[in-house]
C-alpha cells in the first residue's frame, strides 16, 4: 500500500523518521527552534511500540555522553539540539569521532554567537565542517532543504554513520525545522537484535564471550606512534568518504552564465531567485551542496570554467564561500551574500546582490 502523504514540520518529520528507522535511543535537551523533535518523540511513546528509548537528559553535555555510551554498545542512537546546545556537545562529538563511533546528531541552527536569537541562521557551517571539537576529525554533514529531506536524511545519516563508523550530522535551520510541508514517511524497520548488533558491529561493547579479547572503545592512546597510526587510519577513512559520498543538486545549471551556491533553506530561497532572474533573461543557475562535508568541490571546480561568476548565498557572514573559493582556486570571481542574526533574505534581495556583486563587476 502506498504510504500516506502527511503534512508536518521538519522537526516532527525527523522524530517520526527516527522511530520508523528503528532507532534504539534518543537523548536530548529542549531548545528552540528544535524542541518539537523531543516533544513529538515523547508524544508518540515509541518505547511502547518499538522499544526505542527517549530520554530528556539533564543537559546537552549529558545527552551527548549518553550517545557515546549507546553508540559504544553498537546501538542506533541520536541526539538533537540548536546552536548553543550543539556548542556544548562539541567535546563529546570529538570523543565520538576519536573512538570511531557511529551516531546521528541534528543541529537546527539559530542565530549566534552566544545565546543569540531563536530565529533561523546558518552560522554553524564552520563549526560543523571544520571541527568544532578538538583534533583532526571530520563530521559527515547532510544539509536538508525540505521537510521530505528531514525525514529521508535520518536513515541516510545513520547508514553513512554505520558504513564509516563515524558521527554524522544533519545540519538544518529554524526555517526547515518549523516549516510544514508534504512528506511521505519511510516504512517501519525493525530495530536490530542484540545478535545482529554483535554480528554487524563486532567492535561493540556488548559483553565479552569466553575466549574473545575484550572490546575497548576509547579515543585515548598514550603511545604517540600508535596515536599517529590511528590518525592515519582516520585520514584514510575521510579520503574514502570524500571519494564516495559527495552529494549535490543542480537547478537550471545546464546553460547558466552565473551560479548561486546555497545549502538548506537558503537553497530554497535561491531557487525562487533563479526563477526571478530567468524572467529577466539572466541565465542563472543554483548548485546546492547536500553533503557539506564531503564538499562537492570537483563539480564546483568544473563550473568555474563555464560561468562568469559565482555568489555563495548563506544566512551567515561568509563561511561556505571559503570552500567555494578553495574549489575554484581563483579561476572565477566568487562573492558572498548573507543576512545575519536571524534575519532571512528574500528572493529579490538575492537577485539585487547578484547584480551588484557579480554582474556589474564583470
Amino acid at each position, binding site marked *: 500500500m502506498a504510504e500516506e*502523504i502527511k*503534512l508536518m514540520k521538519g522537526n516532527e518529520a525527523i522524530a517520526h523518521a527516527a522511530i520508523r528507522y528503528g532507532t534504539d535511543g534518543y537523548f536530548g535537551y529542549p531548545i*528552540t*527552534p528544535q524542541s518539537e523533535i523531543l516533544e513529538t518523540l515523547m508524544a508518540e511513546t515509541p518505547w511502547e511500540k518499538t522499544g526505542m528509548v527517549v530520554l530528556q537528559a539533564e543537559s546537552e553535555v549529558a545527552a551527548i555522553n549518553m550517545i557515546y555510551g549507546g553508540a559504544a554498545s553498537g546501538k542506533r542512537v541520536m541526539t538533537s539540539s540548536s546552536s548553543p546546545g550543539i556548542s556544548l556537545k562539541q567535546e563529546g562529538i570529538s570523543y565520538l569521532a576519536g573512538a570511531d563511533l557511529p551516531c546521528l546528531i541534528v543541529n537546527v541552527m539559530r542565530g549566534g554567537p552566544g545565546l543569540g536569537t*531563536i*530565529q533561523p541562521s546558518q552560522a554553524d557551517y564552520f563549526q560543523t565542517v571544520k571541527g568544532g571539537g578538538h583534533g583532526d576529525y571530520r563530521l559527515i554533514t547532510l544539509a536538508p532543504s525540505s521537510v521530505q529531506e528531514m525525514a529521508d536524511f535520518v536513515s541516510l545519516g545513520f547508514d553513512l554513520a554505520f558504513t564509516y563508523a563515524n558521527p554524522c550530522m544533519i545540519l538544518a535551520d*529554524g*526555517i526547515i525545522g*518549523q*516549516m*510544514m*510541508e*508534504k512528506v511521505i514517511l519511510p516504512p517501519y524497520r525493525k530495530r536490530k537484535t542484540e545478535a545482529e548488533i554483535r554480528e554487524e558491529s563486532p567492535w561493540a561493547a556488548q559483553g565479552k564471550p569466553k575466549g574473545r579479547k575484550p572490546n575497548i572503545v576509547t579515543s585515548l592512546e598514550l603511545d604517540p606512534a600508535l596515536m599517529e597510526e590511528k590518525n592515519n587510519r582516520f585520514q584514510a577513512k575521510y579520503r574514502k568518504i570524500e571519494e564516495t559520498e559527495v552529494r549535490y543538486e543542480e537547478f537550471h545549471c545546464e546553460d547558466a552564465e552565473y551560479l548561486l551556491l546555497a545549502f538548506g*533553506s537558503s537553497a*530554497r*530561497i*535561491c*531557487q*525562487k*531567485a533563479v*526563477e526571478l532572474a530567468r524572467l529577466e533573461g539572466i541565465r542563472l543557475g543554483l548548485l546546492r551542496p547536500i553533503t557539506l562535508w564531503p564538499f562537492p568541490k570537483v563539480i564546483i571546480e568544473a563550473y568555474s570554467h563555464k560561468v562568469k561568476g559565482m555568489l555563495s548565498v548563506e544566512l551567515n557572514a561568509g563561511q561556505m564561500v571559503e570552500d567555494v573559493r578553495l574549489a575554484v582556486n581563483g579561476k572565477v570571481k566568487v562573492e558572498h551574500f548573507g543576512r545575519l542574526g536571524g534575519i*532571512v*533574505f*528574500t*528572493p*529579490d*534581495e538575492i537577485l539585487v546582490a547578484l547584480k551588484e556583486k557579480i554582474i556589474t563587476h564583470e
Partner: protein
Amino acid sequence: MKQEIIIAGFGGQGVLSMGKILAYSGLMEGKEVTWMPSYGPEQRGGTANVTVILSDNPISSPILNQYDVAIILNQPSLDKFESKVKPGGVLIYDGYGIHGEIRRKDINVYRIDAMDAAIEMKNDKVFNMLILGGLLKVEPMVKLENVLLGLKKSLPERRHKLLPMNEAAIKKGMEIIRKM
C-alpha cells in the same frame, strides 16, 4: 496555478491555525503546500504571521517578498504587509482590527467584520473560520469539501464535535465579506 498568501494579526487570533487548515485543505486537494510560521516571541501576544503557499507545481522558496493575498487582522500587520501585496492582488482586512486607511489603489480590497460576527455567534473561537470563509468566497482556491476535510484532519479527534460550528462560520464568512 500558485497562490502565495500571508495571514497576519495578533497572537491568539488563530492566525497560525487558520494557515494550517488552509494548508491541510490544499493537501486534500492534491496541491503542493508550504506553511511557514513566524515563531517565538511574536506568538505570545505580539504580531504573529504565517505564509501559506498552495501550488500545482513544486514550491521553491517558503520566504516571499510579495503576496497574491494578504489577510490583515491588526494595524501593525497592515503597516508591515500592505506594500507587499502584488499589484492586482487581494487584501482582506477585519474591520475591527484596522483603524487606519488602506492607501493602495492597485489592489482589490475586501472588508470582513468577522469580530462582530463572532460576537453575534457568541463564539470568539470561530473568528478565524469566518475570515477563512471570506477568503474562499473571494479566492476559491480550494473546494469547500476539501476545506472541511482539511479542518477534520487538522483538528484532534476530541475536537471533532466542533466541526459543524466551524463549517457554519466558514459559510457565514462567505456571506459577510464585501468589496471596498
